[in-house]
């Protein structure tokens, strides 16, 4: 690899860092705009004005926003996420277990959806124009066109109401055996897999089809290579970069999907924690959750871009 690629990658990483700062800034200021005074919310209706003023002083709420932002940022670098307003626990402790839960959900979904989507996408591109391809395309457009909560409600209707195979709600703490575990994760994972796979199938199919329209694939066709050899040996190695790019981009849809899915299925992850934190106006908690989501999202789209740069032989 020559320095050209390295340069581009370093540049892209620098952009990601700058973006992260801007995003952190935006998140901090959006949350400081939350209505209502945190001190008076915490103390309840019976609080005296003196008590509210005292608490405001103690929580540094009177400092200018920029100072609070810098203090928050420094704390962040020391691994201190702050203290939750609502129940006076360190945010890190609140998030810890929830974060693992969300990562489990995302991890299982990735393990299932990536092979599934790649197989469907590549075969659909191979059999372009066939009934199979039309079916896969229409189904994936269908899933993309509907909101995530609708995929979830349809999954509940099908598996929990009509077939009665699975429970509609999950509670991770009651898992004692493997079957319990499967029953708990099945519903959220099925929903997320649908949402993520649909994106991935479309992008994979497009990437392979684009490679199939290049002159060297036409050459392979002319010299009499079979259709599957043409796709697997000639087109696929070159489509690999765009495909991995598509996978990383599609996985960033997990961020949005997880928010809806955790709320619907009452799954104890950070998205649920954040939606609840919005209700209680728990600033440090919202900031930390939002930051984790933005970070994950940024990591995935940056990875997608870097893979695209590295896989382009013209830049090497």
């Amino acid at each position, binding site marked *: 690899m020559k320095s050209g690629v390295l340069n581009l990658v370093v540049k892209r990483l620098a952009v990601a860092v*700058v973006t992260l700062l801007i995003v952190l800034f*935006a998140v901090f200021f959006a949350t400081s705009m939350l209505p209502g005074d945190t001190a008076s919310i915490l103390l309840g209706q019976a609080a005296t004005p003196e008590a509210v003023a005292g608490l405001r002083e103690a929580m540094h709420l009177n400092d200018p926003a920029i100072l609070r932002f810098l203090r928050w940022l420094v704390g962040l670098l020391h691994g201190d996420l702050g203290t939750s307003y609502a129940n006076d626990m360190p945010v890190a402790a609140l998030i810890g277990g929830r974060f693992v839960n969300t990562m489990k959900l995302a991890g299982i979904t990735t393990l299932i959806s990536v092979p599934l989507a790649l197989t469907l996408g590549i075969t659909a591109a191979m059999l372009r124009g066939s009934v199979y391809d039309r079916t896969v395309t229409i189904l994936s457009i269908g899933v993309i066109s509907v909101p995530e*909560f609708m995929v979830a409600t349809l999954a509940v*209707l099908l598996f929990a109401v009509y077939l009665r195979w699975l429970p509609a709600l999950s509670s991770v703490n009651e898992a004692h055996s493997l079957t319990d575990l499967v029953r708990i994760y099945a519903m959220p994972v099925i929903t997320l897999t649908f949402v993520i796979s649909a994106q991935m199938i479309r992008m994979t199919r497009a990437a392979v089809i684009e490679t199939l329209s290049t002159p060297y694939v036409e050459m392979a066709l002319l010299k009499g290579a079979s259709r599957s050899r043409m796709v697997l040996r000639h087109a696929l190695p070159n489509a690999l970069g765009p495909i991995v790019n598509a996978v990383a981009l599609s996985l960033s849809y997990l961020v949005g999907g997880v928010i809806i899915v955790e709320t619907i299925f009452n799954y104890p992850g950070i998205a649920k924690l954040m939606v609840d934190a919005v209700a209680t106006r728990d600033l440090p908690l919202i900031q930390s959750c939002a930051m984790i989501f933005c970070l994950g999202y940024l990591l995935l789209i940056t990875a997608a871009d870097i893979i695209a740069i590295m896989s382009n032989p013209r830049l090497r």
Partner: protein
Amino acid sequence: MTMARAAASRRSFLGHSYNLVGVLASLVILAWTLVAVFAPYIIPHPIGDIVDDDYFGPMRQGLWLGSDYLGRDMLSRVLMGARYTVGISLAAVSIACFSGVVLGMIAAVTGGWLDTCLSRFLDAMNSIPSKLFGLVVVAAVGSSIPVLILTLAVIYIPGAYRFARALAVNINTMDFMTVARVRGESTAYLIGSEILPNIIRPVLADFGLRFVFIVLLLSGLSFLGLGLQPPLADWGALVRENIGGLPFAAPAVIVPSLAIASLTISVNLLIDNLPQKIRDRDA
């Protein structure tokens, strides 16, 4: 070559059925638009009235789509919901596309530091997941129709900007642009009379796609309880308030979902079946 392929597919049987799909899709969109405009005149019952003794009532004569969790007429509520879902989304997508496209064209024509700053800033905005952004902003300033419209618009400006800028940059290198510049035309003239007419068709297709994204996001926010607040209800809010009917497969929870799906799928299908020339885009 593209022309030849398009002509060939139009002659084939499948090519014909594409266009049929396109026509059907536009009919569905037209129907929902009419419903959105005339909803107050065609609803059979006032949306707040409790007309059924039972909650989550089934479909029957007089209550064609059953009743909701309070025994209100579901048909009327879905018809009125169309107003909010279509209206808010349309307003938001218009603001988003107008601002995004104008900024994109200005950035492409002007170039230099303005282009760099604008692109960097909007790219950063794009790195905030849309649902998260909506969640935080709506929670911060409370949920009302103007706030929703503006939030949704702001979320989708970066996408519209990027799309329009990419198209406009290509046009900007054409000879007629150089000629116009040499003539001493203003930026307003350049973007309005030289660039816009050349990118308007893909921009309109993009408008449709963004409309779908906004409908989905609005429904998602309403479903989380952060969108339209009661007593107003768009389709997402209707699903949320009737989610208790899910275990009995009540029409009250299925019908609004189907309404969202019919609208978004129709717009997607319509765009997919537009002639190649219109939707030709490099995204």
